[in-house]
């Protein structure tokens, strides 16, 4: 859960974290084998970490400056981790939820931190068997990072919809494209970040949350986007982990460009035109529910439109930034491929229709996780 390696990141450098499922190759159920996987892992760069449950592990990339570096890091991390998993007799899978394993069969990782979380949050933690994708975007100035944060809310539904990859829960189709989004919003400090006048204002809030016993430390703030505890990045944690590396690269490119446009707006000092919080939440919820298969609420326009159109409009707004990053061709192609082929959630549902077995869905996720 820490910031990416390295000290002060350059503005708009990238660090990515992915949470993976540990799956039994025979039953395709989640299995509590994080410890042997972690001890087998020989990771050449970046890092590998335990997570809340023993059926998950998290990797972090080194600091990257280009999407090509992100792609190479994710490819290497997934491969090295998979080798370690194989040696432990298990497999890794990248998707926002496991299609059928029950929360009551999972075990919290027995470290001081995670056991304290289980004690404090109780049922909320027990049910929290979800797998996310976190992108750290380097923003050196902490004041500007906060002003950027409040402006990025309008981009989140678009990101959630494209990355949606958690349609199944406890053996059933939830109807959601990203059911994980519903689950993450349950944290008392989950959901969209609010606005802050200044860094002092933010620090006062953190202090008062700690003083009131609401959180133990700043790391228990789980907003969709948050200033990293190490202060040189803005951390996006709103999307499901993607099954394919292509999608992970796409989401990373979109997040960076969204951060850049909001960063520029923050510097312009123009008062932000923020959406009503009720609407921002509704837009997020709709994206989680329907992914790209219905209407999405475009918070820039304060209107609902067909998902493909809303996504194209977002892409057009980001285009100058994607072009400046040399990411336009790759990211635009990947977005359009997703619109054509469907999201991870759509592919999981297709696999289920084809195989009739949720085990078949897990098998397909494992395969995609390791495809380059």
């Amino acid at each position, binding site marked *: 859960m820490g910031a990416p390696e390295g000290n002060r990141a350059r503005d708009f450098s990238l660090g990515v974290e992915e949470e993976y499922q540990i799956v039994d190759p025979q039953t395709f159920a989640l299995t509590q084998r994080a410890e042997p996987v972690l001890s087998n892992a020989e990771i050449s760069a970046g890092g590998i970490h335990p997570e809340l449950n023993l059926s998950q592990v998290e990797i972090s990339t080194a600091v990257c400056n280009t999407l090509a570096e992100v792609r190479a890091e994710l490819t290497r991390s997934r491969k090295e981790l998979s080798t370690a998993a194989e040696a432990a007799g298990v497999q890794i899978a990248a998707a926002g939820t496991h299609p059928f394993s029950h929360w009551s069969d999972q075990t919290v990782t027995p470290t001081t931190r995670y056991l304290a979380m289980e004690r404090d949050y109780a049922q909320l933690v027990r049910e929290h068997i979800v797998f996310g994708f976190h992108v750290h975007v380097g923003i050196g100035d902490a004041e500007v990072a906060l002003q950027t944060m409040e402006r990025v809310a309008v981009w989140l539904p678009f990101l959630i919809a494209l990355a949606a990859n958690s349609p199944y829960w406890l053996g059933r189709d939830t109807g959601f494209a990203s059911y994980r989004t519903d689950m993450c*919003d349950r944290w*008392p*400090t989950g959901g969209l970040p609010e606005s802050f006048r200044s860094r002092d204002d933010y620090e006062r809030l953190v202090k008062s949350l700690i003083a009131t016993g*609401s959180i133990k430390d700043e790391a228990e703030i789980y907003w969709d986007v948050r200033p990293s505890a190490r202060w040189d990045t803005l951390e996006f944690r709103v999307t499901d982990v993607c099954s394919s590396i292509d999608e992970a690269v796409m989401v990373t490119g979109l997040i960076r460009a969204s951060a850049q446009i909001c960063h520029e707006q923050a510097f312009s000092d123009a008062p932000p035109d923020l959406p009503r919080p*009720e609407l921002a939440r509704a837009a*997020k919820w*709709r994206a989680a529910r329907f992914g790209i298969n219905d*209407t999405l*609420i475009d918070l820039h326009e304060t*209107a609902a439109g067909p998902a493909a159109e809303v996504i194209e409009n977002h892409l057009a707004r980001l285009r100058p930034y994607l072009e400046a990053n040399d990411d336009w061709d790759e990211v635009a192609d990947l977005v359009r491929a997703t619109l054509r082929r469907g999201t991870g959630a759509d592919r999981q549902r297709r696999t289920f229709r084809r195989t009739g077995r949720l085990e078949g869905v897990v098998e397909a996720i494992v395969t995609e996780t390791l495809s380059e």
Partner: protein
Amino acid sequence: MQQSFTVGVEEEYQIIDPGTRSLKQRAEAILSRAESSPVNVEAELQLSQVEIGTPVCDDLAQVRAELVRSRRAVGAAAAEEGMLIGAAGSHPLADPADQAITPTERYLGMAEDYGQLAREQIVFGYHVHIGMDDREAAVQTMNRVRGWLSPMLALGGSSPFWMGRDTGYSSYRTDVWGRWPMAGSPEVFGSCSEYEEVIDLLVTTESIAEETRIYWDVRPSSRFDTLEYRVTDVCMSVDEAVMMAGLARALTRRCYEQAIRDEPVPVVRPELLRAAKWRAARYGLNATLVDVHGQRSRPAHEVIDDWLGFLRPSLEDNGDWAETSALVHQTTERGTGAARQRDAFGRSRRLEDVVDLIVAETGAA
């Protein structure tokens, strides 16, 4: 304009099989048996629940009489079907996968729109309507009550068990209910017209199909000239339900009076408001609560006492002080519904006995 501060209460009940003590999908039969009774009973989202609504009451004595009458009438209709009724925020044994949505256009529409979220709503709430003829005043009052809802939640927790397990929460229903995209604390609104603009915006952007799908902890009712509270679990005992009605009525009056004196709306960070609610749902009266206005953590009984002190002038004006304050003290001494459920489980280690306790308290009057 003088407000009436009348009270109307809605309670959602569980339909329970006396043999297995599990939830039973028998709402339709019970509703048709209750048709001939003079009590207002309606269907709810799940076939294992029914909802009653009292008439508009002028005082707490009437609220009490109506709740006793409603619980008896629904209990009698259920008995004719060989069923029991229970009032608690969650059913200790129920699994969402075993439930069924009420097959009306409205509820099937909700199940279709909300998917898993609707299917998991095996929860039972308590709604209090306080009469306010002036909608502008209702919005200005709502702005001022938001910070006082966590003590109410702490007193009213009755949903500690979920899917056969102790959740650790006093009101786990609060977590489940909070999943609706339009649940949670309302924002502050500058005026009634701003409130209405936001509702229109949510409808035109297809965020909600209709205004009734706003489930904030408190809001001006879409159907009546009332301020409606829906923050608490349904109470096991009639005493507790009467207490909640008295508290909601006094809170409304107190904050209304602040509003007409144009006292400023307290500035509270939304994160803190949410944390306060979460702690009240998690711990009930058994730990510290967040004092939202003082921005600090304090023992639950102090927060409750302060709240009662704040409400006292209005409780007295309403003629409710003696009864409501006595009932609050009774709750802090006996423990909340959640605490009593845990005591019952601690004695026998059987969740069936918890269900029996819920049924017994629901019917005792």
